[in-house]
């Protein structure tokens, strides 16, 4: 089967490439000119250059692919311009969908986010819980809802949407969802608000995507989450591992203000925020999620948080992201 991956150089993309190569597939990896492909080169992955606004180059890259994984949905670096963010995301997606139709692709798996999973007042949310309109919970939520709605409206070829939770594990070079883990590992007590985190090991998401490529599920939307937990509970577990005293959770509004301040500094040339605004919004508004249906459909057995942290820490040490030697608590938690 001819497989193409858009966004192959990203966090999830690299893990998916590793998974597909291990499965014996030879995916064509579409990459931007300016991106980090050192690991894809080391893997010997086949690469094709195309920008997301270049319809002709994309159509050539996608030519007659039987399966396209679209992992390159717009991820806004900043949250201060919602209109421009939505316009960029939707324009890029429209170009990709048009190119895929022109290239006569067989099928697309579009990777979205649990930001699109609506809360339910009486039970954990499932694949069935969808916002009827953009939820208005932040730029990231509205962008992901808009992209997902557009992808599901596509009628020129079949599209399945996958909503992974907060991905943790190796190859998070942009220090996104792993930023809290990294701060704890560096013996810095991070700040975060209270709320629900629906986490999942990125390698399990890659496995789920690989298996989804082999079946056509009865529903067009799947949610991949290992477990939903309170952020304070999750933070306490990581703090114990690294012998750090966790801080009490921030009030939601305080967390938003801190995140906006860090973002403003980053826009002015400062370091990337430790507490990104979208992560604050995702935690504060995060519903509890039951993803058992998707797990059963794909035959997944999710890794434990302990296993995920072990893998992340080992990788982060190799990458020199954790510089100082650590004294890890002897007692492990499951």
């Amino acid at each position: 089967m001819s497989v193409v991956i858009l966004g192959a150089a990203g966090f999830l993309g690299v893990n998916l490439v590793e998974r597909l190569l291990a499965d014996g597939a030879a995916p064509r990896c579409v990459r931007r000119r300016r991106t980090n492909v050192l690991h894809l080169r080391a893997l010997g992955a086949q690469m094709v250059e195309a920008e997301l606004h270049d319809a002709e180059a994309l159509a050539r890259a996608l030519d007659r692919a039987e399966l396209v994984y679209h992992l390159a949905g717009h991820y806004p670096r900043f949250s201060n311009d919602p209109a421009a963010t939505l316009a960029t995301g939707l324009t890029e997606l429209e170009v990709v969908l048009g190119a895929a139709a022109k290239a006569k692709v067989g099928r697309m798996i579009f990777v979205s986010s649990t930001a699109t999973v609506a809360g339910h007042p009486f039970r954990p949310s499932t694949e069935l819980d969808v916002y009827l309109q953009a939820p208005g919970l932040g730029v990231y939520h509205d962008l992901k809802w808009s992209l997902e709605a557009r992808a599901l409206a596509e009628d020129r070829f079949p599209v399945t949407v996958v909503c992974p939770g907060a991905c943790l594990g190796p190859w998070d070079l942009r220090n996104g969802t792993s930023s809290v883990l990294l701060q704890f590992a560096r013996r810095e007590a991070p700040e975060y608000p209270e709320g629900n985190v629906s986490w999942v090991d990125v390698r399990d998401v890659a496995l789920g995507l690989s298996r989804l490529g082999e079946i056509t599920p009865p529903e067009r939307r799947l949610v991949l989450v290992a477990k939903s937990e309170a952020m304070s509970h999750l933070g306490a577990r990581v703090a114990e591992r690294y012998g750090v005293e966790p801080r009490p959770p921030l009030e939601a509004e305080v967390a938003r203000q801190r995140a906006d301040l860090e973002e403003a500094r980053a826009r002015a040339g400062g370091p990337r925020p430790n507490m990104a605004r979208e992560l604050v919004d995702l935690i504060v508004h995060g519903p509890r999620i039951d993803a058992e249906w998707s797990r059963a459909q794909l035959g997944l057995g999710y890794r434990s948080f302990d296993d995920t942290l072990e893998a992340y820490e080992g990788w982060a040490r190799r990458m020199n992201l954790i510089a100082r030697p650590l004294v890890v608590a002897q007692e492990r938690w499951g």
Partner: protein
Amino acid sequence: MQEPQSVQKVILEIVAELSTSRPQQIKDTDRLREDLGLDSVSSMEMLSMLAERLDLDVSLEEAMQVNTVGEVIALSERRLGKA
């Protein structure tokens, strides 16, 4: 195989493309982050572009150890068998 002079020229061109500095302003001692304003992601992009332009075999682990322009040049020349 590229000559050392051209290797350095390619490196300075790529650094200049990703930073606000002009090639002639960039010194070997410049730190990628503090002096040239490249964050960790941009630094990786720079080394990746360099590896592709010069067909270097550079691992991410090695790339993560690099802090200055001089270290980029030294790594490239090692990979090209010049040092």
